[in-house]
C-alpha cells in the first residue's frame, strides 16, 4: 500500500481500532485535490516557463543575429582595410599557424590562396614560396631563425629579392597573444629613389659625370694610398670658347657642347682615369698609378684630341679647345686642397699663356697668382682712396699742326710701388669687373676737366669691351655729359676691335645708341687684332686710329702701304685717321704725305697731368716743331 494511504488509515483509526470511513474518505479526497492542484501548478509553471524560455531564446537568437551581422560588417571592413594595404600582412598564432593573410601578400609573391589560407603552418608557406620561386633561401633555416628571434621577443627584420628583381622588406613583430604579425613591403621603388638621390648627390645632372663632391672624395682616397714609385695626376680642364658658344648659340647649344665634351672625354678615359665635371665649363681627370710622366702627357694628348673633335650643334660646326692645368702628387703636394689648388693654378697659367695649351704646375705660378690678387685688392683700395689720376695726351692736326683735342689716359701712382703701368693693372681690372667703376671715374673726371679747357678741344676717352657689355654704357655716358655739361660733340669714345668680335649685333646696337647721343666714335688700335675691314663697313666710325706698329714701320721698305690703304678706305667713308706713337718728324712728314688727318705721340707731347694740359691749351695754339 502507498505509504500515504497507510498514514491516512492510521489517522482515521481511533484508539479502539475502528476506522472512521468519512474521515478517511476526506483525507483521501484531500490528497487527490492536492495532487490535482500540484499537477495544475506544475503544468502551468512548465508552460509559462516554456513560453518564457522561448521568448528568451528568440531574444537570444535576435541578439546573436545582430551580433553576427555586426561581426560580419566588422569583418568586411577589416577585410577591405587589410586587402587594400599596399603592404603584405600576415598574422600567426603561437603555434606558427596562419590566422590572417591579405591579398597583397599573395599578389606580392604570386602565391595560391588555396594553399596560403588560415591554419597553414609558416614552414608550409615558405615552402610554397620556394616552389613558386618567391623564396631562394633554406626553408628550415629561415623558419628556425625567425622562431629563435620571436622567442626572444625580438622584432625580426629580413630583406629578400624576388626573381623578378624586386626588393621586399619583411618585419616580424611578436604580439601579446603569443603569435606574431608579419608585414611585407615592396621597397624596390624606395631603394631606386634612394639610389637616385645618392646618384644625384654625386653625379652631374647634365653630363652624368661624377661631380665635384665625388671627385674630391675619390681624390682624397687615392691620395691616401699612392704606392711608392707611383704618381697621381690631377688635370683641370677649362673648355675654351664655351662662353662664346653659350652666348652666340644659346644655353641649349652650350649644354650640348658640354655633353659632347663629357662623352668624348669619357670615351678616351682608361681604367686608371677618373673623370668629373666640376661645374660650368670645368672638367677634371684624376689619373692614378702613374709610372712616368709620359703617361700623363699621353693622357693630355688624348684629352686634346677628344676636345678638339668638332661637333655639330643646331646646324653649326663647333670647334672647341681647352686650357689644361696639371698637378702631380706627391711632387706637387699630397694634401687634397693643395693638389686641387695647384692644378687650378696650372690651368690658369695655361689660359694666361693664350689658352689651347697645357701647363704643369710650377711653384712660381702660385707667386704670380698671389701678386695678381694683391694687385686686385690695391685697385679696390685705390678706387676708394681716389689715387688714380687722369693724364691727357694731345692730338694734333697734321694739316695745321694745331691741337685738336686730347686723349684721357688713366695713371696710377701706387703708394709703395710708384707708378704702375696700365698694361699691368687694366687686364686685372677688366677680369675682375673693376674696370666698370674705374672707367666711369675716368669718364666723369675727364668730362669735368675738359669743361675747364678753353675753346672746344675734343676729349677722347677709352671704353673697355667689359664696359661695352655692361648694358648701361650709353646711360653712363649721358649722365657724365649731363653732370659736366660737356657738349656731346666734344666727346670721342675710343673702342677696340675686341668689342665687335663677339655679339656683333648687340655691339652695333650700343654703338648706335652712343651715336644717337651725339658723341663721336673712334676705332682704336686698328691693325693689331683681326683688322677686319668688314667692321668699317658695318659701322660708320668717325675716326680710325692707326696703331703705333704701323707708324714704326713707315721707314721700312713698303712699310707705308698699310697706312696708305687705311687712309684711303677712311677717306672713302668720310672717316678721319689718327696715327699713334709718332716720335719723329720723319714719321710726321710721311703721314702727312700719306694723307693722314691727325697724329699723337711723344714728338708733340707725352701724356701729362690735367694741370699741365690746361696750361698747354691755355698757352694758345702751339705748333709742333
Amino acid at each position, binding site marked *: 500500500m502507498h505509504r*500515504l494511504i497507510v498514514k*491516512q488509515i492510521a489517522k482515521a483509526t481511533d484508539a479502539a481500532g475502528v476506522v472512521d470511513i468519512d474521515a478517511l474518505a476526506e483525507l483521501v479526497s484531500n490528497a487527490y485535490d492536492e495532487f490535482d492542484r*500540484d499537477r*495544475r*501548478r*506544475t503544468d*502551468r509553471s512548465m508552460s*509559462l516557463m516554456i513560453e518564457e*524560455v522561448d521568448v528568451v531564446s528568440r531574444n537570444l537568437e535576435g541578439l546573436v543575429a545582430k551580433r553576427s551581422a555586426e561581426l560580419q560588417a566588422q569583418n568586411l571592413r577589416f577585410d577591405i582595410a587589410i586587402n587594400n594595404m599596399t603592404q603584405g600582412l600576415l598574422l600567426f598564432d603561437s603555434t606558427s599557424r596562419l590566422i590572417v593573410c591579405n591579398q597583397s601578400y599573395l599578389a606580392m609573391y604570386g602565391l595560391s590562396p588555396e594553399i596560403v589560407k588560415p591554419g597553414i603552418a609558416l614552414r608550409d608557406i615558405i615552402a610554397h614560396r620556394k616552389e613558386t620561386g618567391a623564396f631562394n633561401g633554406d626553408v628550415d633555416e629561415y623558419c628556425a631563425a625567425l622562431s629563435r628571434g620571436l622567442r626572444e621577443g625580438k622584432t625580426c627584420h629580413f630583406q629578400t629579392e624576388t626573381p623578378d628583381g624586386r626588393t621586399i622588406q619583411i618585419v616580424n613583430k611578436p604580439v601579446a597573444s603569443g603569435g606574431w604579425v608579419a608585414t611585407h613591403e615592396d621597397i624596390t621603388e624606395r631603394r631606386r629613389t634612394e639610389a637616385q638621390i645618392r646618384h644625384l648627390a654625386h653625379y652631374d645632372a647634365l653630363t652624368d659625370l661624377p661631380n665635384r663632391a665625388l671627385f674630391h672624395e675619390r681624390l682624397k682616397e687615392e691620395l691616401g694610398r699612392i704606392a711608392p714609385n707611383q704618381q697621381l695626376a690631377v688635370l683641370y680642364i677649362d673648355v675654351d670658347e664655351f662662353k662664346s658658344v653659350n652666348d652666340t648659340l644659346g644655353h641649349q647649344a652650350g649644354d650640348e657642347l658640354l655633353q659632347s665634351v663629357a662623352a668624348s672625354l669619357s670615351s678616351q678615359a682608361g681604367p686608371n682615369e677618373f673623370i668629373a665635371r666640376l661645374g660650368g665649363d670645368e672638367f677634371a681627370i684624376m689619373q692614378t698609378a702613374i709610372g712616368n710622366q709620359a703617361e700623363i702627357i699621353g693622357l693630355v694628348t688624348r684629352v686634346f684630341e677628344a676636345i678638339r673633335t668638332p661637333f655639330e650643334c643646331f646646324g653649326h660646326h663647333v670647334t672647341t679647345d681647352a686650357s689644361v692645368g696639371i698637378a702631380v702628387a706627391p711632387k706637387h703636394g699630397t694634401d687634397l686642397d693643395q693638389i686641387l689648388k695647384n692644378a687650378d693654378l696650372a690651368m690658369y697659367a695655361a689660359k694666361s699663356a693664350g689658352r689651347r695649351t697645357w701647363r704643369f704646375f710650377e711653384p712660381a705660378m702660385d707667386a704670380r697668382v698671389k701678386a695678381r690678387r694683391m694687385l686686385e685688392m690695391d685697385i679696390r683700395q685705390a678706387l676708394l682712396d681716389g689715387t688714380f689720376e687722369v693724364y691727357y695726351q694731345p692730338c694734333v692736326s697734321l694739316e695745321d699742326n694745331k691741337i685738336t683735342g686730347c686723349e684721357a689716359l688713366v695713371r696710377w701712382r701706387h703708394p709703395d710701388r710708384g707708378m704702375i703701368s696700365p698694361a699691368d693693372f687694366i687686364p686685372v681690372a677688366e677680369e675682375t669687373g673693376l674696370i666698370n667703376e674705374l672707367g666711369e671715374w675716368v669718364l666723369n673726371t675727364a668730362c669735368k676737366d675738359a669743361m675747364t679747357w678753353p675753346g672746344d678741344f675734343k676729349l677722347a676717352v677709352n671704353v673697355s669691351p667689359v664696359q661695352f657689355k655692361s648694358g648701361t654704357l650709353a646711360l653712363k655716358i649721358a649722365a657724365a655729359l649731363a653732370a659736366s655739361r660737356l657738349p656731346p660733340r666734344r666727346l670721342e669714345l675710343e673702342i677696340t676691335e675686341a668689342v665687335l668680335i663677339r655679339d656683333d649685333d648687340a655691339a652695333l646696337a650700343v654703338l648706335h645708341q652712343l651715336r644717337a647721343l651725339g658723341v663721336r666714335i673712334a676705332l682704336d688700335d686698328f691693325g693689331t687684332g683681326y683688322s677686319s675691314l668688314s667692321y668699317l663697313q658695318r659701322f660708320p666710325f668717325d675716326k680710325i686710329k692707326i696703331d703705333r706698329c704701323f707708324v714704326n714701320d713707315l721707314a721700312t721698305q713698303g712699310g707705308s702701304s698699310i697706312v696708305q690703304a687705311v687712309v684711303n678706305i677712311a677717306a672713302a667713308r668720310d672717316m678721319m685717321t689718327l696715327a699713334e706713337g709718332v716720335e719723329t718728324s720723319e714719321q710726321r712728314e710721311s703721314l702727312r704725305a700719306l694723307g693722314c688727318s691727325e697724329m699723337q705721340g711723344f714728338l708733340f707731347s707725352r701724356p701729362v697731368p690735367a694741370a699741365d694740359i690746361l696750361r698747354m691749351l691755355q698757352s694758345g695754339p702751339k705748333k709742333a716743331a
Partner: protein
Amino acid sequence: MHSQQITWNLHAGWNPAIEQPEKVALVFYFGTRDALACGTRYHELRKMFPKAHILGCSTGGQINNSDVSDEDVVAAAIRFDSTRLRLVSRQISGASASWDCGEAIGRELSDDELAGVFLLSDGLNVNGSDLVNGLVSAIGSTVPLTGGLAGDGADFNETLVGGDCAPQPRLVVGVGFYGKAIRIGHGSAGGWDLFGPRRQVTRSAGNILFELDGEPALDLYERYLGPEDSKGLPGSALLFPIQVHDAEQPDSAVVRTVLAVDRDRRSMTFAGDVPQGWTAQLMRGNFDRLAEGAADAARQARAGLRSAKDDHQFSILVSCIGRRLLMGQHVSDETEAAGFELGDETLRLGFYSYGEISPHAKSGICELHNQTMTVTSFAEVGG
C-alpha cells in the same frame, strides 16, 4: 543531558508526565497562534517547570518526531548536566530595528563560554537578515546561531514569541548555551529546483522587491500562480520561492520567501534582502527532492555534532511554511526523511516557520534562510 517530549491537546491536556520536572532547565514549545495566544499554555508549563527557561512561538504547523500536526501543542523539556543557559528577550518595534535588536541580544548573551545560540523571532515585523547580522556582529561568526521566525499558518497576520513570558507579538528571544560540554550540530538544505530563465533584480529596496527584468515582480508571481492560487497571496507565493545571488559570487546564493505583497505598488516583501543588480531565479518543489533536502540538513547536523553515538541527542527541526503548503499531506515525507537520518532514538521537535536561521552550508556564515529545512542537534558530553 536528557530530553523528554510532552504534547498538549484540547481533550487530554499535557501528556505524559515529566520525571524530575524541577531539574528541567529548558523548555521549547510550539503551537498554533490560536493555541498560544491566551498565554495559558505558557503558564501551565511555567507551573510544571518552575526553574526552567521556557521559550516558544506560534507556527505554521508543529513537528513532533515524524508527525506534523496543526492541533497539538508540542514541547520538549530538557535537563543539562553542566551546561549553563542564559535567556534574553527584546521587543522589536519594526523591521528597521532588526539589526539593533539582534546586536543588543548578542551583546547580552556574549560570554567567553558561549557555545551557541538558539533564536526565536517575530515572523512578520522583522528583517531576518538584519536581525541575524546584528546578532552575529556581537557574538562573532564562530559561535553557531540557529533558530527560526515564528509562523502564523498561511495567514501572515500575526506571530507570537515567548521567552519566560506568555507569547506575544514583536518579541525576539535568544537562549545561549555555555560551557565545554554542550555540542551543537546544525544543517540547512532546501531541495528546491531552479526553473525558468535567470532574471535580474532591476528595482529593489532592502527586502522589498519591485521589479525583475523591468517587470513588476508581483505580475510575474500572479502569472505563475494562476488566478486561483493568486487569491492566496502572500502565502501562495511560497510555492515559488526565489533564489538570489550576486552575479559575481554564485556561491552566495540564498533562497528568499515572501512575507507580504503590496497589490497597489505591485511589490513583494521578502524575509531577507533582495539586492538590486543581483540575479534571481524562480524555484519550484518536487516532493521527493524536498524530502531529500530535509535528509541532507539532518545529515549535516549529525555530522557536525561531534558526539558519541550513544549520547543522548535532541534535535529541533525548523522547516519553512512554503514547504508544507506545497507538500500538503506529503509533508511528513520530509520529517520522516530527517528522522531516518537522525535516528529514532533522537527526540525531534520543531515547527513550520516564516524563516530559518542557520549557518550557510557552504560559506559557514550564519544567515537567514527561507524555504529550507534546518536542523539543530544538541548533545552534552563528559557528563
